């Protein structure tokens, strides 16, 4: 099964990945091969089986819900590609005049 290029474009949009047409073609083939392979699962009768959602094999523990120190804002910003006035800086999201 080869995925349609429309479907790959749709999925890359959901995943926030900009792909060019060559990538879309390649990925349509590659994902198609993986999805062909995983078809084997459809033969397994799971009608009476519960899903396993998590990895734990035993009890974890909940800690008490007490406020503790947080990351200092300057430390948190230290890795930011762009920061200003103690905040992360991003490209403008409102058009001129829209932010009035």
């Amino acid at each position, binding site marked *: 099964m080869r995925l349609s290029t429309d479907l790959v474009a749709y999925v890359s949009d959901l995943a926030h*990945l900009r792909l060019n047409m060559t990538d879309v073609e390649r990925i349509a083939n590659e994902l198609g091969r993986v999805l062909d392979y995983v078809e084997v699962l459809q033969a397994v009768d799971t009608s009476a089986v519960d899903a396993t959602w998590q990895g734990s094999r035993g009890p974890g523990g909940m800690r008490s819900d007490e406020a503790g120190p947080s990351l200092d804002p300057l430390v948190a910003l230290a890795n930011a590609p762009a920061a200003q006035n103690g905040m992360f800086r991003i490209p403008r999201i409102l058009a001129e005049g829209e932010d009035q």
Partner: protein
Amino acid sequence: MMAVPDYSAKGLADAVRSGQVSAESAMIGYLERIRATEPEVHALLAQDQDLALSRAQGVDRMPLDQKSHLALAGVPLVVKDNIVTKEFPTTAGSRMLEGFHSPYTATAVERAEAQGAIVLAKSNLDEFGMGSSTEHSAFGPTKNPWDLTRVPGGSSGGSAAAVAVGMAPLALGSDTGGSIRQPAAFCGIVGLKPTYGRVSRYGLIAYASSLDQIGPLARTVEDVGLLLQVISGQDVRDATSGENPVSDYLAELKRPLEGLRVGMPKEYFGQGIDPKVRSVVEKMLTRLATEGVTVIEIEMPHTRYAIATYYLIAPAEASSNLSRYDGIRYGFRAPATDLDSLYRNTRAQGMGEEVQRRILLGTHVLSAGYYDQYYVKAQKVRTLIRRDFDEAFQTVDLVVTPSAPDLPFVLGSRSDDPMQMYLSDICTVTANLAGLPALSVPAGFDDGLPIGMQWIGPAWSEDLLLRAGYMVEQMVERPRWPL
């Protein structure tokens, strides 16, 4: 070439504690070993020789009563570069995190350091842990020290190669589908994936959170037990860390396992397994049988669905976990004039092909219309794979399989075929899906290349796995050093 610092971690810590060896002189030996071998092997992404030396001097200066309590006094440790460290950059093998400095250190590293271990380097890996050869690192592949034309396995290939060649006696890796055990096997060393929840994941860069575990790699089973002892135990910063008490893994290590019943699942010894691998593992089982171990052929019928199950669940979790790389808070940012393009360009330019492939696969199987067909189905089959193990452990104590279906393969030979690469995880993914501990220990060599055997046990049975591994270790002749 200069002599390799020939200590076990246990031996070195004992010698440093008693003052027979200074941590500084040992460290100098390891740093020279790195200078001699790293240009050929490329196991490391970051190192800080000055820091390592000053830490070693610090251990030497400690008052005796303080030093004598340190289980890892002065022992050099390599840390996989998807485990965050305050003093080293952490890239996870990705351009996306190039230059990233974590504001905190992972619990497992913190615990090792508190016992006197000294981090001397961060090691190479497949980008974000996604791969089985270390070829998917954005910073170039690591080479297998036993044959530099071959892969060291992955994703913890840098950690495994570093230990195999003697850059450090201990390393930390992470294992989502075999990423500690398969490179340990390919590099002729010992690696353990603990029970899910045994070791805190705090500070491990998330790939697939229900499968990821941090674990130790070392040249001997005893050293693996020593490091496991130090890093195990509940952590308030990881809600999935378990409250089960941590056993003394070294106390009973050398006591022979009398009456051990070992299950040999035929599904792991059939099609797809290299006959050379099969033969080495089977020979070892025959030898164990003469030592009083009972080997029982068992069936684990859902094994054949494991790769399909894993390659639905892991990418699904990855697609969610990796959504955090958006170019806003840390890491790489691509130029863009609007926010939406900033996200899309940053992620497309910052992440490698394999990572993008898994994100897209994961996004697809979680998307409306496909969720039940793929993701929920895989989580149900996961239950059946767990049940196979639960049933096996009704009749046997441990299960034995090869650690990998084949010998270390030639660099570049599988990089164009993702599906072929995925199949190399066939022996290891089941333990992650079932949340169980599993140990890879060298079982022999074929034509100079190491072959590993895997022991899988019930949850929290690390002590038993280590004892079984120790028994195997005593029976294997291996060359001392590859380079």
